[in-house]
């Protein structure tokens, strides 16, 4: 393994010569910026970095990142990425896709990548809609979503990407928001630093087909009360003056939002975020308005990665077998000689 050449890099070093073709005002632009900033900050070696994606607006991402890139087929990016890591675990592999790509057609591959814990950084752009195919509802769309395929409103209950991921045994889940250019790169850096599958759900505004879907918690006016930024070891506080917080609900196994100004509420009751607690992460993942939406690293508890274990097993095998000699292997077991 060659150590990456560490020279100072700029976000623009990671921009390709391709014209970026998302709709003007699309949240994807902001995410692109945050990723390019992240790559610069970690001084990613373009030669050893690969962006893999499925199909969708989000999935066009690799064409705009000056590294290796593979724009594959709808829903299959985690599977392709797994193969890349099996062939060469030293590559730094990022996977990008939308909510349709990763949770509808590709839900199973995502789940199995998480379960196996392949060392991938997965960015799921959740705009709660199918952008590229012109606005049909997606598995994250809320009930009642009117779309070309649901003119009377959708009726199926949406899935929560992060709750599902935790259910599948994910070891790292985080949530970021497209426009938060201060916060998002830090989350991405944390995801990248995690060995194993790291899933980041990025809330992304589709200005054309689902504009304002997240306004309820992303609007400047409400965000302080409508978001809770979680940090390991810090109390789960939110609100403009951080006078609100989360505490254990009576009976346990649940959390509730309280105001420190309420009668009977004390600072000491406020939960401290523990990123290694899967139950807490699940509860945080499930918070939705009117509860504050959790942003940041909800869960980070590394486990052995699949790709490393595969290689380790192969090494053991090689050590046991000695120099591999195929000619000899063919001749092992019963053979006989014909005199002709």
């Amino acid at each position: 393994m060659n150590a990456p050449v560490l020279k100072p890099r700029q976000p623009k070093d990671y921009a390709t010569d391709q014209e970026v073709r998302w709709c003007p005002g699309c949240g994807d632009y902001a995410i692109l910026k945050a990723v390019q900033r992240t790559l610069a900050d970690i001084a990613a070696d373009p030669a050893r970095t690969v962006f893999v994606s499925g199909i969708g607006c989000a999935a066009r991402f690799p064409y705009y990142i000056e590294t290796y890139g593979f724009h594959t087929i709808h829903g299959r990016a985690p599977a392709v990425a797994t193969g890349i890591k099996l062939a060469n675990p030293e590559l730094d592999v990022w996977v990008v896709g939308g909510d349709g790509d990763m949770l509808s057609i590709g839900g199973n591959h995502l789940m199995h990548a998480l379960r196996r814990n392949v060392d991938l950084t997965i960015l799921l752009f959740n705009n709660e809609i199918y952008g590229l195919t012109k606005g049909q509802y997606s598995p994250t769309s809320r009930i009642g979503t009117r779309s070309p395929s649901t003119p009377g409103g959708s009726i199926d209950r949406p899935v929560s990407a992060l709750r599902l991921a935790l259910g599948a045994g994910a070891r790292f889940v985080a949530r970021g928001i497209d426009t938060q250019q201060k916060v998002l790169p830090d989350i991405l850096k944390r995801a990248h630093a995690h060995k194993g599958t790291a899933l980041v759900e990025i809330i992304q505004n589709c200005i054309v087909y689902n504009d304002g879907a997240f306004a309820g918690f992303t609007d400047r006016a409400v965000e302080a009360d409508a978001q809770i930024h979680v940090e390991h070891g810090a109390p789960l506080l939110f609100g403009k003056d951080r006078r609100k917080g989360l505490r254990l609900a009576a009976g346990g196994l649940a959390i509730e939002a309280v105001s420190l100004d309420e009668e009977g509420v004390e600072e000491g009751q406020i939960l401290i975020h523990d990123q290694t607690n899967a139950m807490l992460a699940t509860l945080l993942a499930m918070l939705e308005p009117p509860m504050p939406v959790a942003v940041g690293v909800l869960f980070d508890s590394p486990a052995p990665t699949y790709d490393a274990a595969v290689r380790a097993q192969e090494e053991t095998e090689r050590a046991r077998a000695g120099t591999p000699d195929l000619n000899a292997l063919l001749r092992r077991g019963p053979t006989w000689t014909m005199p002709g």
Partner: protein
Amino acid sequence: MVSVGAGVEIAEETRSRTSLESVVVRFAGDSGDGIQVVGGRFTLATAIGGSDLATFPDFPAEIRAPTGTTFGVSAFQINFGARRIRTIGDAPDVLVALNPAALKVNLADLPRGATIILDGGSFKERDLKKAGFAGDPRHDGTLAGYRVVDIDISDLTKKATASTGLSSREQLRCKNFWSLGLVLWMFDRPREPILAWLKQRFAKQPEVAEANSLALNAGHALGETAELGPLPAFKVGPAPIEAGLYRTVTGHEALAFGLVDGARKAGLRMVFCSYPITPASALLHHLAGMKAFGVTTFQAEDEIAAACAALGASYAGSIGVTSSSGPGIALKTETIGLAIGAELPLVVVNSQRAGPSTGMPTKTEQSDLYQAVFGRNADSPLVVLAAATPADCFVMAREAIRLAVHHMTPVMLLTDGFLANASEPWLIPDLDATPAFPVRFRAEPEGYQPFARDGRGVRDWVKPGTPGLEHRIGGIERDALSGNISYDPANHQRMTEARWDKVLAVADDIPEQEVEQGETSGRLAVVGWGSTYGPIARAVTTLRDRGQSVSHIHLRHLWPLPRNLGELLRGFEHILVPEMNKGQLVTILRNEYLVPAQSLSKVTGKPFTIHEVEDAMTAALGISS
């Protein structure tokens, strides 16, 4: 005198026996009877005797059916002879039936005059009923016309093994080896290698080794002493086969070896990604045991993920291989389309089975040729190969890797359920004697254009990790040079043609079509592909021996077709294409060459018999069969 692998020497016997050119023996019994084990041992003993041979195991569709039922019967057939053996034989000359169900199931295949060796001890009323016999077939005329050797093998086995102190049930388990002993005697085959094998195999259970050895010897002794009156005894001499070191190999073993050798010769790590499915799984199993050879195996969550992971591996600079059977291949077709569009190497092995849909997973068929050549959306050419025999799987697997990596294309390699499980003697190749075909990855950034092509229409392969060659590819149409997304009409026309021509140009890199047997023109060409090789070869030999102007042409490269094939076919008055499908290759030949090729179709889940092919040939020639 022939010498055995581990240095054992066997003296040739000189007793007087009926001499046979070739013979077909089928062992049959309950799944739990150890039929496959004795089949394998008998095969080796036969091979050591210098005969040529072919074998085929016939497992029940059920994992483990209730004892004594017809659907729980397991069988193993061997055809061996003093001449080149091409098939497993149309019908058994000798059937060993270890229970009534085995007799019941196999009787229909048995020509009158055949020898049946029965374990009379297992013909109790309950057993007969379970097998679906109304009466006792030994006494009700059912077996009239057969040469029946009715021995209480169960009892004799127990007696022979009584001294071991094993339980009566354990003793009874040795009856397969008792029968094997008798059959060894019948065909004058050596016991020593089997006794040696038993010792080794059951090193940790010496009493089991001992019991089986005792049974084997007892069965053999019964032949010699023939307490039942004279038993049939035969002599099958050595076949005129090439000198050298041999082993037996099944198609799937050969596939595994060929893929590993191909990757080695290409200088690549192999990443083999699959999802279990009958009859393809065995390839995954073999390769999973070969991790020391630079092979990574990955059992994916489904066939789509397997194909995608293999493609990802190829993208990353390994050779990605994926394997399945028809229904699983159906799921991979979208991914194969991506491989075609991205112009990456990928080997897809299809072990065909009877369909449509789940069909008959354990039965053979070669009905996925349409799928291989035509079965994708859009104009999506790729290379299609097919192996002819178990040993040929080795050669064609290596060929698949060679063509994939040197032409940056997916290659579909077709085998089938018959090839997967059948075995034959294999003259073990010296792998170092075949030239390597190392891949050269591009590393020079100067002037790099991801979709620029060389004279053969092939683009460069670049390993991610190479500095200065960062680029993007994908499934949306690519600019003919940069590979960036392009919706330009002229570019799409150009790229469609480039993909087409690139695959057609593979014809320059494969041998011209040879004629397997016979002249290069004449009255009738029988054109085959895949596992029909054996019966066609034998049928053509027979008719040629009868002086007929017939030739055998066997295709291993199905797309693109060899350059000279059209001309060759036009030299024949009649063209007969036997296939285990409703006529798929015949479609391609008729379309390509406008020749009036005729289909001979069989879809029973079983290989052609030699006679079926012979009959169709005589009909085509207008002669009597």
